[in-house]
């Protein structure tokens, strides 16, 4: 009967097919609802993020602690040559460097180098720590350090550190534990650059023929365990660490969430112990710990063409930035008005540079004076911003735009895709008809003003539009200062910064921002200005 019905109507078998397709979808959905393993994922995965506080079972309670850190972005690779904040967040329990930072003062402190000195104008000598081994068992000595440095300095390898060391820098092993680094010209800031020179095992780099850097082999207290792309990076304690056991944390797990609100929620639920780089709006609840960092939002102005070529106009623009309001309203109080591009922990910071007040009346006076002198103040000035800029930046620039236009200038905002923005921002020399202002955020993690001055103020700087003719006095002052070291360097670079603020005004600093961390209940951690999150600094209840 059923068969007859099927044949006649032709409807039942269609229903059957429809149901079958539904069942197929059910089966596929069920199959895919089980934990999916990517090829790189081992069968035995870690506990899910929600169970993070439970920690895997280990022999003793002290051994069982796992530190879960949620940061905004996954590192693209584990290349020791990466110099990004993501790398600083992620690398430094595994890779170590010759010099570190004192988190309180920012001063350089020994790490894998016990001491260093300048032996002549072009040579720095580093005395290395003895008895250190890489995680692969290879010895860390002057030969290894020289190999790594020369690898990082090799132009063919195109590593980030090349932006901070002069061409021709070369390392040589003098003996087992003595390393010389030479430059073609005097370079007192060289030790500061070592902060970004991660010491990876030469053997591991040589073995990584493709240069994919999917693992880390350093000398640090934690060694690489696994990296499940997109999901987590896990480190485990290095039992052979030269410094002994620095913490009772057995494992460190990094996870990545783009959204600040999600990172914040993870700390509050205990899925993560430390949430990094939160937005001010996510600080209303939980254990929030801010830290001042060397990051300064600012604007830089084209100098060659009028009206921006007139220093009165540039000063007027700086006077039209309501820094306190920006710090309070847009950064939720997690920022303070900035006097210069570098923060107080940077060599060359000048405490005597006064804060530029928010003074629209004075700005209008300067603009009118320029107008009276025939300066074309009505010329259109374009403010360039990345289209991917966050809301805080956009609102900040709109506020500055409104204030400057109210004061009599003609500023317009142009948003561009990051690639196009970069192409415009890096265009040098400035085209004859260009009048541009760029927003930027400057970080000086090497904590020496020379890096800032060279990039943003020197005529040869990649973000500088100062010409040799107009900036000769500035160039002379900096050239002299850049050759000094020690306390003299601090004084001389501070003078350069003052000269810039008084006589060049190529940039308007806006605020010093703070990095905001949130900690899970009971976790103790004092964040550092240099972005490092070291297990030794974390305490569990």
């Amino acid at each position, binding site marked *: 009967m059923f068969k007859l019905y099927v044949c006649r109507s032709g409807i039942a078998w269609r229903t059957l097919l429809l149901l079958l397709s539904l069942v197929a979808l059910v089966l596929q959905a069920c199959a895919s*609802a089980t*934990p*999916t*393993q*990517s*090829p790189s994922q081992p069968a035995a995965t870690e506990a899910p993020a929600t169970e993070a506080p439970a920690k895997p079972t280990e022999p003793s309670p002290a051994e069982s602690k796992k530190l879960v850190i949620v940061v905004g972005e996954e590192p693209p690779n584990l290349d020791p040559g990466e110099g990004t904040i993501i790398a600083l967040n992620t690398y430094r329990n595994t890779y170590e460097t010759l010099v570190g930072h004192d988190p309180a003062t920012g001063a350089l402190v020994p790490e894998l180098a016990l001491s260093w000195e300048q032996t002549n104008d072009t040579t720095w000598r580093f005395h290395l720590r003895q008895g250190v081994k890489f995680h692969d068992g290879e010895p860390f000595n002057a030969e290894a350090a020289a190999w790594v440095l020369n690898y990082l300095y090799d132009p063919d390898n195109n590593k980030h550190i090349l932006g901070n060391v002069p061409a021709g820098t070369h390392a040589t092993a003098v003996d087992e534990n003595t390393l010389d680094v030479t430059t073609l010209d005097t370079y007192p800031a060289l030790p500061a650059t070592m902060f970004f020179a991660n010491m990876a095992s030469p053997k591991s780099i040589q073995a990584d023929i493709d240069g994919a850097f999917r693992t880390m082999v350093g000398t640090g207290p934690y060694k690489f365990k696994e990296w499940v792309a*997109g999901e987590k990076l896990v480190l485990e304690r290095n039992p052979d660490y030269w410094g002994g056991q620095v913490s009772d944390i057995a494992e460190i797990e990094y*996870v990545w969430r783009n959204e600040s609100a999600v990172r914040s929620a993870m700390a509050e639920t205990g899925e993560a112990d430390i949430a990094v780089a939160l937005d001010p709006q996510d600080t209303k609840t939980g254990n929030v710990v801010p830290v001042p960092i060397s990051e300064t939002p600012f604007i830089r102005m084209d100098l060659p063409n009028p009206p921006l070529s007139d220093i009165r106009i540039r000063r007027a623009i700086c006077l039209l930035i309501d820094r306190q309001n920006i710090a309070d309203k847009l950064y939720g109080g997690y920022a303070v008005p900035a006097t210069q591009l570098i923060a107080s922990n940077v060599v060359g910071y000048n405490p005597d540079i006064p804060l530029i007040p928010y003074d629209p009346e004075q700005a209008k006076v300067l603009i009118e004076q320029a107008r009276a002198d025939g300066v074309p103040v009505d010329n259109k000035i374009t403010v360039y911003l990345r289209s991917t800029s966050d809301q805080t930046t956009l609102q900040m620039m709109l506020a500055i735009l409104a204030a400057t236009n109210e004061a009599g200038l003609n500023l317009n905002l142009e948003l561009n895709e990051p690639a196009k923005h970069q*192409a415009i921002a890096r265009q040098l020399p400035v085209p004859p008809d260009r009048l541009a202002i760029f927003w930027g955020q400057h970080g000086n993690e090497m904590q020496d003003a020379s890096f800032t001055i060279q990039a943003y103020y020197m005529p040869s700087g*990649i973000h500088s539009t100062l010409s040799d003719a107009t900036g000769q006095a500035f160039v002379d002052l900096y050239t002299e200062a850049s050759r000094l070291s020690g306390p003299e360097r601090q004084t001389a670079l501070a003078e350069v910064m003052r000269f810039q603020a008084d006589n060049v005004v190529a940039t308007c600093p806006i605020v010093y921002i703070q990095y905001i961390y949130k900690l899970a209940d009971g976790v103790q951690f004092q964040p550092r200005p240099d972005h490092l999150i070291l297990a030794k600094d974390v305490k569990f209840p």
Partner: protein
Amino acid sequence: MATYVLRRLFYSIFVVVAVTILVFLLSRLTGDPALLYLPETAPLEMAERFREMHGLNRPILVQLVDFLNGAIHLDFGKSLWQKIPASALVLDRLPLTLTLAFGTTFVSLVIAIVIGVIAALRPLSFFDSLTTAISLFGVSVPSFWLALVLIYIFSLRLGWLPTSGSGTWKHAILPLIVLTWGPSGYLARVVRTSMLEQLSAVYLTAARAKGVAKVRLLLRHALPNAAFPIMTVTSSTFIGVANGAVIVETVFGWPGIGKLTIDAIANRDFPVLQATVFVVGIIVVLTNLVLDLLYAAIDPRVRLGSR
């Protein structure tokens, strides 16, 4: 049937190749990855070296020929950022995206059929109005907002589910709710409309007159005949999520194709972008092929061979 399938597959190759070439050319117009990859303080010589290392300074036609040569062997080159083969990167993320795609499709379909059929049986009733309101709400709510609200309620306040991540079935629940929210509402409206049309058809009146049971009438007669538009919309839902549920993947830290694609676009990671488009293109083509086969299987009036 076999001839039809082979012919469709043959044509599909051209579609995938054309789309991939188009993306190759368009992506080159969107800007230079060198300046994005390097730090702000990097000298321009480093940018030039980056272009040289990745062959980006060669004439575009040379790059295209090189790309096509590799693509034939499914080699799209190495990611400029991650330095591993782009195809491996995409295939690694594919299962997680397909998990969401199949899950969303299935849950949306079940919800839509139940709600849509009931609404069709009681047109203009309170339930029907409620369904309409829920559907409108579903398609109107931004997924970003909904995701954060769900995290707040179910993770932060109730502590029932993890906020984000992947690895267990619990991690999939919130992303699935967010992804299902909109399509199920829209699909429910499609089911309702389609069912209403069928329920007022003459053949059903005849069936009723013959005394066919109501459930049988509904499931064996009306629903299969209403299936065409439902299947079409369902396939669109599947393709939409399989293309990459960018917002959901970003908020929930779900490492699927969507997030990978957006990052590849933002970073001008051409090899990854090309590999993603290639894989997604194949998914779209195969989904449409399966849909056509289902059409033919359900309705004999659709003659595959004559197309």
